[in-house]
Structure formats: C-alpha cells, structure tokens
C-alpha cells in the first residue's frame, strides 16, 4: 500500500509490519505484530483529522491452517497437503487475529 507521501507499507509472514521509502526502498520503520501478516494495510483519515494506517495480523486459510488450527506436521496429507507445504510456518509465527492501527506522524 503506497501513500501520497511516498511511503510504502507491507507486512511479512513473520509478523513484521514495515514502512519503506517508495523512491529508495530504504526501511523507514518496522513493528513486530503478534502473528503473520497476510492482509493488506489500509490508510484512512480519522475523525480527529489525523492519518492512520491499519493492518490485520493473523495467518489463516488453507496455507495458514497448520498454525491457525494447531495441526500436526507429521501427517503430510493434513489440510489437503498444505501442512506439508507450510510445515515450517509454526516456527515463524503464531496464531493471530489482531487489528493494529498506527497514527502517522
């Protein structure tokens, strides 16, 4: 998600929420959320006139089922085989479902 002020926001599977300079790609800021980020960030203007960025933290769907459902990685057929494909995900992240909102300075 890119803002008019040339800042790009994105999240990683490990839970890092990052802000980059759109021109140089330099990391401006990062924050470790409670779970992996798959959702897209949104930017909005609050009733107080301030600009906010919000993102959902939490893995899910078939790809995240091994973490979200606490599945057993010894069964490679589990969750239609997604457990086998994503068996290292439990080492990278934990269950989530949190909404983070940050005020832009």
């Amino acid at each position, binding site marked *: 998600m890119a803002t008019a002020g040339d800042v790009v926001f994105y999240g990683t599977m490990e839970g890092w929420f990052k802000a980059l300079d759109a021109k140089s790609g330099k990391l401006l800021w990062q924050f470790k959320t409670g779970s992996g980020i798959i959702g897209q960030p949104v930017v909005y203007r609050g009733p107080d006139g301030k600009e906010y960025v919000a993102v959902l933290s939490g893995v899910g769907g078939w790809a995240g089922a091994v973490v979200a459902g606490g599945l*057993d990685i010894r069964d490679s057929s589990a969750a239609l085989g997604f457990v086998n494909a994503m068996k290292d995900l439990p080492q990278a992240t934990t269950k989530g479902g949190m909404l983070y909102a940050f005020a832009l300075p």
Partner: protein
Amino acid sequence: MPSRFRERRGLFSALLLALSLFACKREERNFQGLPSGGTGTHPRVREVALVAGGGASADSGPGPYEENAYAVSQGKTLYNQYNCSGCHFQGGGGIGPPLMDADWIYGSRPENIYETIAEGRPNGMPSFDGKIVPDQLWQIVAYVRSMSGLLRKDVAPGRNDDMQVRPQEQSTKKAKPMQSAIPKSAELP
C-alpha cells in the same frame, strides 16, 4: 542320539502348538459383534461427564477392541470409508482438529470418543448415530486412539494400504492426552 533328537523335536512341536493356541488373541475375529451390537443403542454413553467431587471420573478401562489388531485395522479402513479423513485427514487435521497429538477437546477415553462420533460436537462434527452400527463405531474408536500411540504397539496398524503420508500408528510416539479448553463457541447456553 536319534532318540534325543526326536525328543527335542517333540518338545518343539508342542511349543509351536501352544504358541499357535495362545499367541494369536490379538488377531481374533469377532463375527458375532458386541453383545449389544446391531441394536442401534449406545452401549456405554452417558449424558454428562459430571462426577461427585469433580475432577476426572474413574477410568472405565479400554474400549472393547483395544487389544485386537484385526478390529483396529478394520477401524482404520472404516475411518476412511466413513470419510473421517475428509476433515481430520490421516490424523494431522484440517477442517477438523488433529487426532494424532496430545490435545483432546472432548476427552481421550474410549467412551468420550464414542460419544463425540455418535452425538457430534459443535462447530462441524456431525452425529453418526444410526449411520454406523455400534460394533463398527467401537472399531473406529480403537483406531482413533491408536493414532496418538495410545494402543499397544503390536495391536496398532503397522502399514497403510496406499501411499504412506504419516508414520505408522505402530511407530507413533505415545502422546500423553491433555484436556484442552473447550472453545467459547462450543459452550452450551
């Protein structure tokens, strides 16, 4: 010398006879079903798990098929035929929770598992009451318990009929059952 050899051979065949008579109990086939089987009634299921003084109720012992390798392998076949694998896969879970780990939301004892299958559970587990005869249901119960290594090693299935996707039940490390918290959405009103 020859007489001694004969004597030994006699002893050996006597031993073999004794072994064949007593060592194959785990392979015994029960063609009559359980005494209460086929009637459609639940043999041992209670409405509530409450016991005086709280805590866990007294262990009611193993299910009727937990010492019988033939019945457990029948349970494994039925587990796939009744499409338990559709949600629980080969024990790792998917839409349904995993069955090969130590976590048991509704209890790990044979009668707990029987009740879970017969009555169903909130959030997706359907009721199979009247769809599976009690005899076969107990075989599935025994197989489900073998998935987390709760059955004797020589009773748990040692191979799959198709591609191996998980370690055999025989070589699954025993998972000490824990009662996990019942999810809020599954609580009775």
